[in-house]
């Protein structure tokens, strides 16, 4: 380590926040850009699976709640792109990397939302897993990222409660609604477990990221915590977690559970999820169809500036 790097690491170890204009190692910057960018992309791609049910929400109240949630997600995307911009990369650059398939978004959004219960399960499980990842990141070393996380976590936990409320309604509803709820849990359980990433033993970059406090916990720690939190919630709903080997382990004070099918995880990552092409295709189409609109705003701004300049002469 160079003296600069050493000093940088000491600041982090002391719990200081790193701010945009301060010196940072190139690797730190790059890792953060990748991580924040992927997170931002996940928020905007994440609008699509839930957006899929807005026009079909079963009551006006549910429609309004879902709209507000999807709007929040777009807002989270905005905070996160802004945080990434403080590291010297523009939102448009990040979007282009997304559209070119050079940056990822969370694989969970490559699964379809097939019934209304998925609006519950996404809130409960997907937002639940996201919060599990994000809460520790409120203490991350990079100031703008940490502050974005604090805002986001507040809203996410609200979303999670709303999702659980939908599940509750369904689980206490008609037989068809109960079936929807169980079906949603069946489909989304393992993909939610995958959200924490591969097992620590297979996870790359982890040690350095943890030293830099960009990553605060290991994947397996968070996954265990998620299972321990979620299983009792499922039981309360009267739903069955689709894992025959799930059982409480008194000794470790947590559940033993089956690993997700990691070959499916890598398959989806490689582009073969149920919705990869549709999701990315929808985003690329939105971007391309909107080019004329964005161009017009730029040109109008130039015209207006020119007029102001002329008026000032």
């Amino acid at each position, binding site marked *: 380590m160079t003296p600069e790097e050493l000093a940088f690491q000491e600041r982090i170890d002391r719990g200081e926040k790193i701010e945009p204009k301060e010196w940072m190692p190139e690797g730190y910057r790059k890792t953060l850009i990748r991580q924040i960018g992927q997170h931002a992309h996940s928020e905007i791609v994440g609008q699509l699976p839930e957006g899929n049910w807005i026009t079909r929400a079963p009551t006006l109240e549910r429609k309004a709640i879902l709209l507000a949630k999807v709007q929040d997600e777009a807002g989270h995307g905005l905070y996160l792109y802004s945080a990434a911009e403080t590291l010297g990369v523009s939102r448009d650059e990040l979007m282009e990397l997304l559209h070119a398939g050079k940056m990822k978004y969370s694989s969970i959004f490559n699964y379809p939302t097939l019934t209304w219960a998925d609006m519950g399960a996404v809130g409960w499980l997907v937002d639940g897993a996201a919060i599990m990842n994000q809460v520790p990141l409120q203490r991350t070393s990079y100031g703008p990222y940490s502050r974005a996380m604090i805002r986001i976590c507040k809203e996410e936990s609200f979303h999670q409660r709303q999702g659980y409320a939908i599940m509750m309604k369904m689980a206490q509803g008609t037989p068809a*609604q109960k079936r929807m709820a169980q079906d949603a849990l069946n489909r989304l359980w393992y993909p939610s477990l995958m959200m924490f990433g591969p097992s620590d033993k297979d996870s790359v970059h982890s040690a350095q990221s943890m030293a830099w406090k960009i990553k605060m916990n290991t994947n397996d720690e968070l996954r265990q915590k998620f299972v321990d939190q979620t299983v009792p919630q499922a039981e309360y709903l009267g739903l069955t977690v689709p894992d025959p080997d799930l059982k409480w382990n008194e000794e470790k004070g947590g559940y033993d559970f089956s690993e997700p099918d990691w070959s499916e995880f890598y398959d989806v990552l490689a582009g073969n999820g149920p919705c990869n092409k549709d999701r990315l295709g929808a985003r690329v189409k939105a971007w391309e169809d909107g080019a004329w609109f964005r161009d017009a705003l730029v040109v109008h701004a130039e015209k207006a500036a020119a007029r102001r300049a002329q008026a000032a002469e």
Partner: protein
Amino acid sequence: QEAFFEALLRLGDSTLILGHRVSEWCGHAPALEEDIALANVALDLIGQTQLWLGLAAEVEGQGRTADDLAYLRDAWDFRNLLLVERPNGDFGHTLMRQFLFDAWHHELLKGLSASSDPRVAEIAAKAAKEVAYHLERSSDLVVRLGDGTEESHRRTQEALDALWPYTGEMFIGDDKDAQVAARGIFPDQASLRPAWDETLRHVLGEATLQIPDSPFAHKGGRQGTHTEHLGYILAEMQFLQRAYPGASW
């Protein structure tokens, strides 16, 4: 009473269907800011729908709820303006529809804020604040697109021309309108036109767009005769309530 119920449906159905159309953009807008803004507009419109249809149900007094009205009527019982059921088209088309609607909606809500029915006045006062913002935003964007590039100008003008025949309906009253106007519950439909015209002259002028001079107006939406689009909207919107009758969500 029946005329009052009808007038509330005409308003509540319009905000419902426009909210539906706007929400179709969710996740597909040309910029993240627009995704947020459109979701916000849709959210306001759905919120207003809850209030207007809720009041309609109350006025009807048959024990129906706002959700019953939204989810269990077929197209012919809907009373929304034809304008709001038009397909989204490109983003400029959606914005132009929004602007033409907002300019009318804003005037209407100003009038309704002084309604002789305090329940109407209260809802309108709340909604007017939201809609003032909708109008500000859609006006601003129409100006920027109209006076933007050649392409954006062309698209915006085409949208205006295509939507124009659907605006006249906003100002044509029938005898039910006359009844609620006479009782001071709703403003007279035609009375909203001068201010709307003025808004258009101002905004579209700044946008360098040409206001069509055709007086032709499609009508029928407010009496229940719609375009072919509404049936598809309702089939989608009402699916869960229709397929799982009596369930609680």
